[in-house]
Structure formats: C-alpha cells, structure tokens
C-alpha cells in the first residue's frame, strides 16, 4: 500500500491527501516524546503506541490538532505517514510544542 500524503508546495496547507484513511506517525529526536491526544475535525482520535493516529481524510480543508508531551522541550518532532507496508514516508519536522496543529487539504 503506497503512501498518500504529501507536503503542500503552496504552503497554504501543511499536507495534502486524498479522501480516505491515513495513518500519521509522530516521533522525535528525544526518546521521551509521547503523542498524548489528537482530534481531527474536532473529533477525538485514538492514539496508538503513544505515536500514531489513524483517521479518514475528509474533503476540503481540515484540521488535525495534537497534544504531545516531552520533558526535553528542545526536541524536534518528525511527522511521517505510515504507508501500511512496513515503511513510512517522511513529511516534515516541527519544533516541539505541547499543542500543535496541521492543516490538511484534500486532493
């Protein structure tokens, strides 16, 4: 199964993805990092393994919000898509913030 998400070259959105199910993986340089909670379009998502969320991308511009925790607050968060075949597609890095969000546009 191929990965579907990509970075929006226009910069208006963080990511572009076709409508359908995606799994996003959040890791960090620090092993202390944990993805704690997430909502997609205001609906809470189940966090798996303290690092990933799966949701159905809806049409239009949508919002994924996350809460994350890490005692090492200088860490960098790596966002990737789980391609479902054992591989991951790196999307982007972000400076760690307890509360963060990603704008996702459907394609």
């Amino acid at each position: 199964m191929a990965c579907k998400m990509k970075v929006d070259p226009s910069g208006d959105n963080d990511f572009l993805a076709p409508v359908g199910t995606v799994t996003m993986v959040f890791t960090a340089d620090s092993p202390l990092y944990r993805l704690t909670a997430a909502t997609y379009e205001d609906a809470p998502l189940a966090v798996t393994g303290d690092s990933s969320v799966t949701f159905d991308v809806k049409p239009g511009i949508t919002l994924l919000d996350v809460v994350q925790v890490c005692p090492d607050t200088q860490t960098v968060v790596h966002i990737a898509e789980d391609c479902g075949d054992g591989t991951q597609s790196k999307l982007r890095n972000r400076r760690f913030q307890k509360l963060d969000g990603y704008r996702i546009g459907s394609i």
Partner: protein
Amino acid sequence: MRTLRIFALFSLALLAAGAVAQTTVTVQDQNLAGFTNSIAAVLDAKANHPEQLDGAINDLLALQGNQAAFLQFAVKSQTVQGLTANQINLAKKVAHDTLGAAVEQSRTDEQFSPGSGFAGSTSAVAKAGLTSLLSAAIESGAITQAINGNTATFSANADGLLRFIADANPFPFCDPDEPTTVTIPDTTKNADANTKADAGKKTTAAKKRGCGTPILRDIGITTSFDMQQGSTKTVATSPADNPPGAPSSVNILTAKNRFSGVSVKYVFRNPQDIRSKTFQDKWTQYYSDNRQKFQDIGNTVLAVISPTLGPLIKDAEATQLRRQFRLDIGDSLKNINDPNAAEAMIEKMLVQYLEKLLQRGRQMTPNFDQQLNSAVTAYARFLGDMSTLVKEITTKTVFSAEYNFQRPVGQPETSQFKIMSTLNPFGAEKGNLSVNLAGTFYNSSSVSGQFGRWRDAQASLQLERKIGGNMADYPARLSLAGYFQYMISPGLISLDQSNFAPGTNIQLPQAAALALSPTGPIWIAEAKITIKLKSTGAEIPFAVTRSNRTDLIQATSVRGHVGITYDLDKLFAAATK
C-alpha cells in the same frame, strides 16, 4: 612547541569569533512572547539559510502551528479585542484562577510560618519552597523557645512583589517551557564560525525561560513581628543542671509589639538529568502509569481549542491574509540587513496580521471573544495540569538556603544559616519529606567573647501527606516531625541596665547576657494537622510538640500551637479584577 602555541591561539580566536557572531532574539512586544522561536527561525533563515526563508515566514504566520502563541497574544492584547478593561481583567483572572486551581492548590512545598527559633511558630521543620507572591501567617506557640508567643509573619516572592508594584502581572500567563530569548548565529560577520555556532544552537537555542525573572523568582523574603503586649512570666530553671550563678527562677520577658526577625531564602532547583538512561526508564514507567491522565488533559484542552480556532485556521479569507503578509514580510526583509531592524519589522507586521486575524474571527463567529476566553482558560488549565504531572518526575529535589536574623525576646540577637530540601519520595500526590540543617551564632561580639560564637546546630526532618481528596483539592495535611538541636553555648537571656547582677543587689553597669541553661541536646517531636479551607488560600495549622527541654529551661515541655496562614495570591488576583 611554538607550533602548538600558535594552534592554541588560533583555536581560541576561532572560538571567540564564533561566540561573538551570534544574535540574541528577545521579542520586544511581550504579547508576542509565544512567537519567539518562530521569529528566531525567520531571522536564522535570513542569516543562514535563505532558501528556507519563505517557509519560515509561512510557519510564523500559520495559525495551526502557533495556536498557544495566538491565545497568549489575544489575552494580552487589549487594543485588538475590543473588550473593556474589566472584561480583559476578568479573562486574566479566570486564566490565573484556573492555574491557581491546578498548580497553586496542589503545592505543599511553601513555607508560611516563621522558623523554629521564633516565638509563635508552629513549624519545627521549614519547607524549601517559596510563595508565588505574598503570604501572611499569625501563629501562637513556640518550638524551641521557653515561652509561647504570638507572631505575625509576612512572606513575599521578590519577583512577584516587584511585578505587582510595577503594575505588571505578578503571575505571568505563559508556558514555562517557552523561551522568550533565543540565540541565533549571524553569518554576516563570520561564515565559518557561524556554521559551528549553528550546529551547537540546534540543541541549546533556548537561553531564557518565559515565566518570571530569573534569580528574582527564586528569592523569598520573610519578616516577623511579635504581637504581644510586653509582660514577664516567672519560670523555674531546674537549678540542678544550670550553669553556675543561674537563678532558680527567672522573670522572662514574653514579648511586645516589635520586629522579631527577617529572613532571606534562595531556592535552588535540581532538575533530573532528562537525558540519562535512568531518567528515560523512569519516565517510560511514569508515562505508562499515568497515560490516562495525560490523555484526559490533552482531550480536554483540544475539545475547547479546536472548535474555537479551527474555523479561523481553515477560513479562506484568513488564508488569503496569510499569503499577503507572507509576501509583504518577505519583500520587506529583502531591504533590511540589520537583524534588530529585521526583528522589529517582523514584530510590527506580525501584530498587524494577528489583529486582522482576530477581527476576522469576530466576523465569522459572533461570540468569538468569549470563545477565546474559554480557550485561554482551557489552555491555562492544561499548562497547569501538564506542568504538575511533568514536574512530578522532572524535578528531583528543591534545595533552599536561608539566612535568618533573629531577635528573640529577652535574648541576644542571633544569625542562622539554614539549608533545606523538600522532596517527593512517594510521589507528589502522597506527600513530601522536608529536611533541614542549620547553625546559629550570636551576633554580638561581647556575647560571643564570653560564651563562644556558635549558639547551636540543628537537624530536623518532617514527613507530610495529604489526607483525602486529590492532588489539588483535599481537606487537610498531616505531618510528623523530629527536631534535634544541640546547644553549643548555654541558653542566654539578656539583662538590661535596670537589672541587678545575679545574686546581688548591684545594678548592672551595662546590658549583659546571663547563662541560664546548660549546653546539650534538645529533642522535639511534633505532630501537626493543617486544615485547608477549600480553595481560599487560608489554612489553619494545629500542632502538638513534646520536647526534653527548651533553649532556656531544662525541663520537659508539652505544648499546643495554633495559627492561621493565608496565601495572598488570590486576594491580589481579585483586587486586579
């Protein structure tokens, strides 16, 4: 050898160039404090990575990645919200009160009472923490002193007090982990050196944390006053053990309205090494044990913030606004070479952009300001809850050092140096352990010349735990303490010129000290229950102590102590409403 010297000098010069060629970014507009890292990233990109400049500007303006910073800006910006001053202050108060509920209410490391050497103390053992702004205590009793007294004690946090006097918010609403100053390299001065500096910067960018003034926020000042009318009390002195010349009974001045002492405390925090393997293992276990708590806190804040900011983040007009400012900032930066001027320009344009975003939010949602206030409140609670959980494991121990100037009634003045620590060996929810070590010496050279400089040495231990309730909301705390003091010099009383020399009818030519009790150990056991009056900040401590002797009287003593303490943070928060 000469080659080695030249190499060393060259290395030093290179290091110096690298150290000099750095720019420190400190946001001038404190409403933009949450954007410090993003502004620094733009300046860093301009200086070192021009190909990343447009992306950095876009990230600075992307609301979804700066939601907390946007809330911080919104709550502090009085000009843009269109709210009245009262509404703004109410919002700030709500934010503070929720922080207070989550953090202040859960604190048990603050010391409100005077030290054990004061008349009118209920605490055999001092805690290592400081009040956030001001606290007051009125207490009756005595721990080591021979006569019970009533003492009023006022404690202040230096930073909180100065902020309050300067009409600034004494409880800054900010994320304690967010820096307000970031150091970035400046390639316009030395490209090679800055490449090295940049590499180091990636892990150590933050130079200053956002909440409170460094050093000042860790200094506490306490003053105490005796509250009794002057009188004397006749007490027996157990003549068998007394030093030669001591009378079998003595009239001791109990107290009168007077300044009885001052202390200055500095708190050293001792964070755990979060990069150590030990900490990583501990954190993994801790997070696993508390995963549900973390998730609940996260879901609670998202349930409020996502619906509030989501529509604005996704709005087409807001997106168009972002595109426009992205271009404008990029164009403006092309013509500015001075980093300070660039920073000023970015801040100015960012404020304009955020104001327009707030205006757009109000156009889209009629009660946008009320929603923002709810989001600010939720975020403040989130920060408090999250900080409490994380600090439980990241802060190993709090150490304090304290100097006490003591004026005990009817005794020579003393100075005391004390180190203390309050730790949570059983987890913050279960209670804390406080340890004190102290030494006291006489200030007067005439007294020390006669009896020796050192008066006593002390060691004490207290275990305290909450009774019932949860971390922040509980009805009472129970503590058990053991206190040991060794009287290196005899217990002394001061006699002024109106007294007669002991055993004579000869009036003293000048004030003098009289040894009243022998050197030796004082053992004290204390049991105390502190009733917490809901979330008012008021507490009532009841304590019972048993000691083998006091500092002046060689006889066992069982005494009761009572007081009322008040954490004045809430009073002042209400006053700003």
